[in-house]
């Protein structure tokens, strides 16, 4: 976006909006109090347009546009919530709910209600089942709660830490976040900065202390389980 000083005017939900060139539709909508729902979007990470829950109708075009990444254009006519937009959002939410445990994702739960997503829309659907991984004193990972927003992988890499401990395994529906070759976190390049835990929107990554409290551990047990003691370290290969 070469010249951000240039101002442009577009229409969002019938309302004229004037913003600096380069502003995304999401930012423009927020500037006039119109909330566009998001799941993967986070102000501190590079937007990748993954969840597509933020899609909006632009000029009645063939494709809906992800508001988090598409910049405003002068004269653009945006509808943030019409029948097409609602169908896509509701269907994405229903599919997500049928695949992932969203019990600890309150923001997504609110969206499910808002879009009247039916909880049992997809009967006998495969779920992304993963066993809880408890391999270090700092946090636990439950990828059956992971929506694949990519934030943890991004902050572990160029978006923040440049540690590159995380990657994706497989592809398509079976994609999941992994350290690679089944390596426990203490044996990976993880530096336990905790940034991945702080950006996780669904409780898939959880501090060990919080996890311990939920499990009803005593303070002694929490102390015991969250120190980086020699005995907690797996033999590195």
């Amino acid at each position, binding site marked *: 976006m070469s010249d951000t000083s240039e101002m442009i005017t577009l229409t969002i939900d019938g309302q004229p909006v004037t913003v600096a060139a380069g502003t995304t539709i999401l930012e423009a909508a927020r500037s006039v109090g119109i909330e566009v729902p998001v*799941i993967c979007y986070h102000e501190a990470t590079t937007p*990748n*347009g*993954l*969840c*597509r*829950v933020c*899609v909006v109708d632009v000029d009645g075009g*063939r*494709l*809906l546009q*992800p508001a988090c*990444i598409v910049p405003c254009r002068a004269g653009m006519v945006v509808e943030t919530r019409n029948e*097409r937009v609602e*169908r*896509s959002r*509701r*269907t*994405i939410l229903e*599919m*997500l709910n*049928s*695949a992932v445990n969203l019990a600890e994702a309150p923001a997504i739960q609110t969206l499910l209600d808002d879009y009247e997503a039916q909880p049992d*829309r*997809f*009967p*006998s*659907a*495969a779920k992304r089942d993963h066993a809880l991984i408890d391999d270090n004193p700092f946090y636990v990972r439950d990828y059956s709660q992971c*929506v*694949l927003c990519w934030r943890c992988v991004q902050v572990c890499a160029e978006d923040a830490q440049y540690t*590159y*401990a*995380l*990657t*994706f*395994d*497989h*592809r*398509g*529906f*079976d*994609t999941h976040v*992994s*350290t*690679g*070759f089944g*390596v426990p976190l203490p044996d*990976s*390049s993880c530096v336990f900065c905790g940034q991945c835990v702080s950006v996780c929107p669904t409780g898939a990554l959880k501090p060990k202390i919080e996890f311990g409290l939920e499990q009803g551990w005593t303070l002694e047990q929490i102390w015991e389980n969250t120190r980086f003691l020699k005995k907690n370290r797996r033999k590195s*290969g």
Partner: protein
Amino acid sequence: MAEITRTRLDEIVARYAGRGREALLPMLWDAQHEAGYIDPETAQSISRTLRVPIAEIYGVIGFYTLFSDEPEGETVIHVCTDPSCGVAGADSVVDELCARLGVRPGETTADGRYTIKRGTCLGLCEHAPAALVCQRGEGEYSHAPVTDIAALLDGQRPARAAVVDGERQVFLAGAVPNHAESLAEYGDYAALRRALLTLTPEQVSAEVEASGLVGRGGAGFPTGMKWRFTRGAAGQPHYAVCNADESEPGTFKDRVLMEHRPHLLLEGLLLAAYAIQARYAFVFVRGEYPEATTIMEAAIREAQSAGLLGERIMGTDFSCSVEVRRGGGAYICGEETALFEAIEGKRGFPRIKPPYPTTHGLFNRPTSINNVETLCAVPAIIRNGAGWFRQWGTEKSTGTKLVSVSGHVRRPGVYEIPFGLTLRELLEGHCAGFVGEPQAVLMGGAAGTFLRADEIDVPLTYEALQAAGTTLGSGAVMVFNSEVDLRDVLRRLGHFFAHESCGKCFPCQLGTQRQMEILDRLEQPLPGDVERLRDVGLTMTEASLCGLGQTAAMAVLSALRKWPALFGEEA
């Protein structure tokens, strides 16, 4: 299982010393060949050599189907079970192989000799049913058609009877079936000579623009315009890339072009490189095309020694190197930006567009990426002029077109036809008619749409097919006769997309899975399944990030319109 030996690993490492992440796929191929899989220690060596984090190397291995992170059989046999091979008996091939070896699909025999896998389209649809054989220590080869299980297990390679026919003017003139044309047979790049010695880069792209040539991979973008945009884009170097990742089920014309006319493609690519002033060119060939890869590599060596590519070509100031890159097994890499990611050594995730490749392509530099067939049209256009090319076809669909015909016709194969020929003329004339009573034609591949047997009088042009609610796409024509249960075809398409979704955006990652599940139970649908298919299909179509998701429901939605009874709906 054979571990990679220290010496062999050291040899591989030495070969790649000093290179960066762009060498990841080639290096993984070398390691995969050596041991049949990539173990953590090998990955660690690769990581150190190319300075790529180990976790990301694992991520790349996990993305591509032809790489493995665990030991498999000495011989891995991938049997294509997509529609054309499916109706030719691919399931029985898998069943027989498994019964004979005492394994289930995906498993390895106890003696470690064989692994049998169900696979997606191998681009050998005219020789269905097809298999790809990967042999540890040796490499890959295709085996098609599979007519004898013992011969397949025995490592035999049946000769293919290629059909390369039609009105052979632009692409197939002089093509000899089952023969790769040598440089001597092809001639010494007369069109390139004319361009380098008498035309400016601007004149080359102007001529191509005047010819009306549009991208033949399916998207139909005007080729000359793409070159003009790329040439004018800021940033150096510029790259010319040939998209030879042909993976659309039912499409095999690019393989046939590479296997028969490698120099035609190279000359076309060099003309593109000259037009956009690129110093480097790549041919990205899908991993499932070992024969085409070998032929292209040999052709590059031949052209190099004849001074037709490399430094100061034909004594001019124009220099361009050409390198073949092999894919690792991923349909999504036919998407241009995913293909760039693969060359850059990453998982094949498509990028968000804009920015477009003309300004931000390979290595984020201005790039023109063109399909094999598109590039193969260029030498004749430069030699004979735009007007000559326009003598065939219509105002909007100029020249001749290659179509890949498979399924229930008497002579499946690749045909060069003038735009405007009707589908009936193609099938009843060139292809010598139907096997059985025609029921349906799937146009444009898995990402295409169905026609009923009474709709085949449509002329084969972009505009007429669009008006008829269908598409020419990459030129795939799959014919199914009345013996075929179209629900079986739909089920195979559902599996194809679920297998090939990259998993980046939610609509496609989740939608291809849900679509597959619903198509799997078409015989006994649940109440509301039609509505679910529509919602999932429209959501993928309208909200997905790239062309894969946007077209993953096209065929299903078109079948739902034409044959509602298949889905338990009233007609």
